[in-house]
Every structure is written in structure tokens, then in C-alpha cells.
């Protein structure tokens, strides 16, 4: 059986914090402890009353506020977009995936200071000349064969 509330329990009761069950039960039944709690609360309430006495005229304050309001709020209401979150998630995954691929793909060693030894222009000119030359052996035969095949298919 609890005699009286301990000081920390008394403070908790004044502050309106939860008490242990035994302390709560005791407070419910003990006039002395209840008086102690309410005496402290009374001092705080008197102080609150003093502060209340300083409050301004609410109607006047409201009118002054209403005069200061802009025509409309400057920040528009926050509108929820249900599709925005999944879309952003997909975009984030894509960005990460592309980024990782770029990082992991071996890039050819392109040192701008090194000039290729291959005669590129010459090779391209030779390839062009070869493609333009109808007399290259084999091409006539191939053409001839294709003509025959077309003829045969068209006849059947």
C-alpha cells in the first residue's frame, strides 16, 4: 500500500504526464496528495490568468490582420499527382541503369594526342574504286545466276 506520492510522481501529476497505476490509484484516493497537486496547478493557473489579462482586443486584432492580407495566397495549393511518384521512380531507375552501363562499358583508348598511323583516306578511296569496278571477276557470274533464277521462278 502506497503512503503518499513521491516528489517525482507529484511533478508528473502536475505536468499531466501519465503515472504508474499504483500512483494513479493513490492519487484518486488520497486527499493530501490531490491537494498538493492542485495547489501547484493553482499557482500556474493564476499566472495564466495574469497573462490572459494582457491579451489584446481580439476583434480589433482580427480586423487589422484582415486589412493586411493580400488578395490571394501567393503560394498555390499543393496538388497531389498520383502518377508522379511511380513515374519519378521509373525515371530514377533508368538514370541509374544508364549511368552504370556507361561506367562499366570499356571505352576505347582515345587519346587525342595520338594520331592514327593508318592511311584512312587511301583505304576509303580503294574501297570506293573496287565497288565501282564492274569488271571484277565473280560479279558478272553472280549477276548471271540471279537473272537465271528470276527467269526460272517467273516461268513456274
Amino acid at each position: 500500500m502506497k503512503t503518499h506520492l513521491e516528489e517525482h510522481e507529484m511533478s508528473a501529476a502536475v505536468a499531466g504526464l501519465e503515472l504508474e497505476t499504483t500512483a494513479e490509484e493513490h492519487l484518486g484516493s488520497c486527499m493530501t496528495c490531490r491537494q498538493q497537486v492542485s495547489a501547484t496547478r493553482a499557482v500556474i493557473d493564476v499566472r495564466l490568468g495574469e497573462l490572459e489579462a494582457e491579451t489584446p482586443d481580439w476583434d480589433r486584432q482580427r480586423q487589422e490582420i484582415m486589412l493586411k492580407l493580400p488578395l490571394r495566397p501567393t503560394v498555390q495549393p499543393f496538388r497531389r499527382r498520383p502518377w508522379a511518384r511511380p513515374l519519378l521512380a521509373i525515371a530514377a531507375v533508368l538514370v541509374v541503369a544508364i549511368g552504370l552501363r556507361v561506367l562499366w562499358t570499356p571505352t576505347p583508348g582515345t587519346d587525342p594526342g595520338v594520331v592514327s598511323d593508318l592511311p584512312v583516306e587511301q583505304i576509303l578511296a580503294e574501297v570506293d574504286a573496287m565497288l565501282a569496278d564492274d569488271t571484277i571477276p565473280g560479279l558478272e557470274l553472280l549477276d548471271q545466276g540471279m537473272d537465271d533464277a528470276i527467269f526460272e521462278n517467273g516461268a513456274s
Partner: protein
Amino acid sequence: MDPTRTDLSQADDALVLRAQNGDHDAFGELVNRHQRRVWMVCRQYVGVGEADAAAQDSLVKAFTRIGDFDRRAAFSTWLTRIAINTCLDELRRRRREAIVDDESDGDNELNHLDRVPDDDAGPEGRSMQKQAVASLVAHEKKLPPRQREIFRLRFFAEMELEEIATVLDVHIGTVKTQLHRAVHKLREELGAYR
């Protein structure tokens, strides 16, 4: 949150929606509902002389930014946060403008509360209760800043513990601990008066 508070919060939501679309009457009703709380909060931070101006400033800011209010917290909580920020800005401004730099209290912005104008406790009171209140006022000012802030928001701005935790962005356990310590110290100081 008790049912009455929930009902009030839901009724606030309807008014907020209208105010977000520029309805001044709806915002006027919100002012009507919350101006006392806002003033009381400002009173605790900037003192009685500046409380009215700070409260008005806070409420005008609230209308301007009401589009930002996303209903994740109660409107009163959001509004209280604006009021506290407005007061802290005002206190920082005062600090910058102070010609004589008084004793340095460190960097914690809560030390701004030390500059809150003294409450006029008056001369020795005749009654026991007056003396007790004077003692409360005197010792409350000596509390550590965070304890004093939480004590004032709880008892003078009459805020719920969860709401205090939200507006100060601290854990509810911190609020409970600091409040308990504050009351404990004040009860010790009140001694014979309590």
C-alpha cells in the same frame, strides 16, 4: 487527439480549403479560432509588448503560405510553427541590432528566450498565492531555455504534448522529460508556497 479536437481540426480543413482559394471570410474564421493561441505563443517568446505585432505577422504569413499547408499536421500545429519561427526571427533581429552585447550564452538559439522581457511580477504580494506566483515567475525564468520553452507552451499556450513535440521537432519523450524536470524544479523552488 480527443474527439473535440478532431472535429475542430476537420472543420479547420474545410476552411483551409476555401482560404487556399483566396476566400478571406474563411481565413477570417480561422483567425477567429486560433488568434488567442497564436498570441499566447508569441507572448512567451517576444514578450507582451511585441506579442500583438508578432501574432499579426504570423497570421498574415499563414494566409500568404496557406498553399503550402498539406494537412499532414493539424492546421493549429502548422500555424503554431509559423508563429514560433516568426518570433525566433524577431529575436534574432533584436540580437543583431543589440548595441551592447550582454553576456554570451553560447550559440543555442533557445538562449534568445533569455531576452524575453521580464514579466512584471510586481512588488511583494500580500497574499500567499501572489507570492507563490511571483516566485513561479522568477524561477521559471531561470529554467534552462528548452525547459522554459516547453513549460510555457504546455501551461500558458495550453498545447498538447504531442503538438509541442511536433512544433519543436523533438521526440515526445524529450518533451515529457523536460516538462517533468521543469515542474520538479519549480515545485522545489516554490517550497512553502505550494
